[in-house]
């Protein structure tokens, strides 16, 4: 009797599984007739992408921003809950979180291309999309130069190569002139406080580390290879940073008394009130990071910054001293 029960259960289960396993995912039409091509994404994986994608889902705020920056925002049909810039992005439907987006929502939006960010999204998400035969392309940028390259890739994917080139040119100019301005100058000692308790900073190999380097800072964590090292307060006191840089945004708020605490208040930075607040959202690997670059540069090199920004006043530029909305 038990065996009869077992075999019936087994047969039912097998039937269900077969149904599940052989379900045809190809019924989804994402091909609007145009051909596809094979490219390598930011992680070196081969992806078959449409020549002219019409419906793109972004799985990361940095991707969303990049797409809008190159004028591909109209191709966007889906974004994550955290894609809050530019404001137009909020009008697009959301597919969920960055780590846990809803595959169902993505599928129901019928995208012909999904663009993810390799350092924000899970590889499992990309794998699942691939299994559903939805092209998933991952952008990856760990330095400012790589951000420029991912803008180029985005332009290439969406057919907005020219617009992308314009954006890249402008951003490159901004980056180079800061480079020139800090060349040969003494770099102030800086500590980037990613998180205060426990004290976590950024190492040389992190994205923020590259940002600091380009802004002309001498991060006191320069010798540390890990991307997010934990420091002790003693090390901070010993290294005595002249500037403290802290991100602010939804995830973290900087309070006035934060650096008045023992240990912190001994630092040159705290004594001189040299605390630089950077918009958290501007630390994404997207065009806005160049605003953060300028913010930091201005704080570290006020005279050079005055000279530099008085000279140029191109309308297309954004000089961001206030946090973006």
């Amino acid at each position, binding site marked *: 009797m038990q065996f009869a029960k077992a075999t019936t259960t087994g047969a039912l289960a097998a039937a269900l599984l077969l149904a599940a396993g052989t379900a045809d995912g190809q019924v989804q039409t994402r091909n609007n007739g145009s051909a596809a091509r094979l490219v390598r994404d930011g992680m070196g994986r081969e992806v078959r992408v449409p020549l002219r994608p019409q419906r793109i889902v972004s799985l990361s705020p940095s991707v969303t921003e990049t797409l809008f920056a190159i004028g591909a925002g109209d191709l966007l049909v889906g974004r994550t809950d955290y894609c809050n810039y530019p404001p137009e992005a909020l009008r697009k439907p959301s597919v969920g*979180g960055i780590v846990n987006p*809803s595959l*169902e929502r993505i599928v129901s939006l019928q995208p012909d291309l999904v663009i993810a960010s390799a350092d924000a999204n899970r590889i499992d998400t990309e794998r699942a999309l691939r299994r*559903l035969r939805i092209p998933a392309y991952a952008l990856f940028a760990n330095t400012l130069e790589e951000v420029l390259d991912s803008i180029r890739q985005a332009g290439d994917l969406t057919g907005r190569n020219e617009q992308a080139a314009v954006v890249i040119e402008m951003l490159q100019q901004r980056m180079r002139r800061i480079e020139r301005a800090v060349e040969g100058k003494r770099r102030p000692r800086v500590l980037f406080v990613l998180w205060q308790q426990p004290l976590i900073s950024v190492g040389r190999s992190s994205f923020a580390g590259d940002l600091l380097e380009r802004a002309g800072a001498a991060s006191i964590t320069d010798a540390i290879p890990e991307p997010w090292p934990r420091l002790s307060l003693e090390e901070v006191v010993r290294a005595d940073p002249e500037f403290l840089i802290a991100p602010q945004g939804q995830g973290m708020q900087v309070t006035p008394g934060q650096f008045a605490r023992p240990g912190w208040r001994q630092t040159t930075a705290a004594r001189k009130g040299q605390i630089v607040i950077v918009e958290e959202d501007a630390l994404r690997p997207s065009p806005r990071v160049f605003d953060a670059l300028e913010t930091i540069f201005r704080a570290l090199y006020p005279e050079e910054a005055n000279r530099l920004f008085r000279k140029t006043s191109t309308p297309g530029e954004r000089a961001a001293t206030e946090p973006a909305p």
Partner: protein
Amino acid sequence: MTFSPPARTRNTEGRLTLGRVCLTCGLLAVALAGAGALALHFGSAGELWRVLFGGSPATPQERVILLELRLPRVILAMLVGAALATAGACFQSLLRNPLADPYVLGISSGAALGTILTLLLAGGDTVAAPLAAFGGALAAAGVVYALGYRRGQFSGYSLLLAGMVTASFLSAIIVFLSTTLSGSDLRGLAFWLMGDLSLFPGFPLSVVALPILAGLVVVYRFAPDLNLLLLGEDEAARLGVNLKLVKTVIYVCAALLTGLSVSVAGAVGFLGLLVPHLARQLFGSDYRLLLPAGALCGAILLVAADTLARTAIAPAELPVGAFTAMAGAPLFVYLLRRRTPS
């Protein structure tokens, strides 16, 4: 032979027959089908009632969502729910402790560690993962057994302590290993460790489904033995149980069920505690009914919990383990306190 039972009781009370088991399980199976239908209906992409029952044709997207996303997930939830509930019931009998549960005892952590190791060494998503998870579960179970066994029996508290120590130790190793993972893998880990059915593996479901079903059937075959094990190993042996065989088989099966479940769904907690307890209240503690009914209840519960996880804050998804832990942890404390006077 005649006797006169007291007027208010029937003489067959307490007698469990195959018929009663089949009837109860039949009803539960219907409930499970209902839960499954509801789960297929609800989702972050909207309700598919009309497609399922209204008879209207499905758009291609709806077909993909139903068949490739929801259906496998629902099946997986059923399997994992049944597997973990059964594993919990097995450990409770083997270790003579109603608080035994693969999660509490650290056996899920052992399975998780096995899976993570294959992620690191073999790039994950291969068939090696469930195998390694099985191995991890077996090893953890062995450690807990060895630590908790005192003078021929399992002292209740020392067993739980052994389990918690094992779980903590393994979790520490997992945290240590996770620092070597790159950023994006790490993000998923926290979710998966809590128990997450949202992303299923690169290998076909049957790789875990068939062994789970086989494990359930084998365990069920030993239901009478599990009943007797509750009396203690000595008494069970005296009543005719082949201890070596039963213990080995049940250990291996419970570890298999745990390992396979964890390898695809992460460490969903407390199901092995919640479900047998609930099932005992409803169906009594005879394993011949408790096992199949418990398995079906576990399936229903996990399907329901997973549906909630998918829809509560849609389109974002919660890890299903969050729900089971929220329900299970208080239950654990309650059961623990009830036992203290004894």
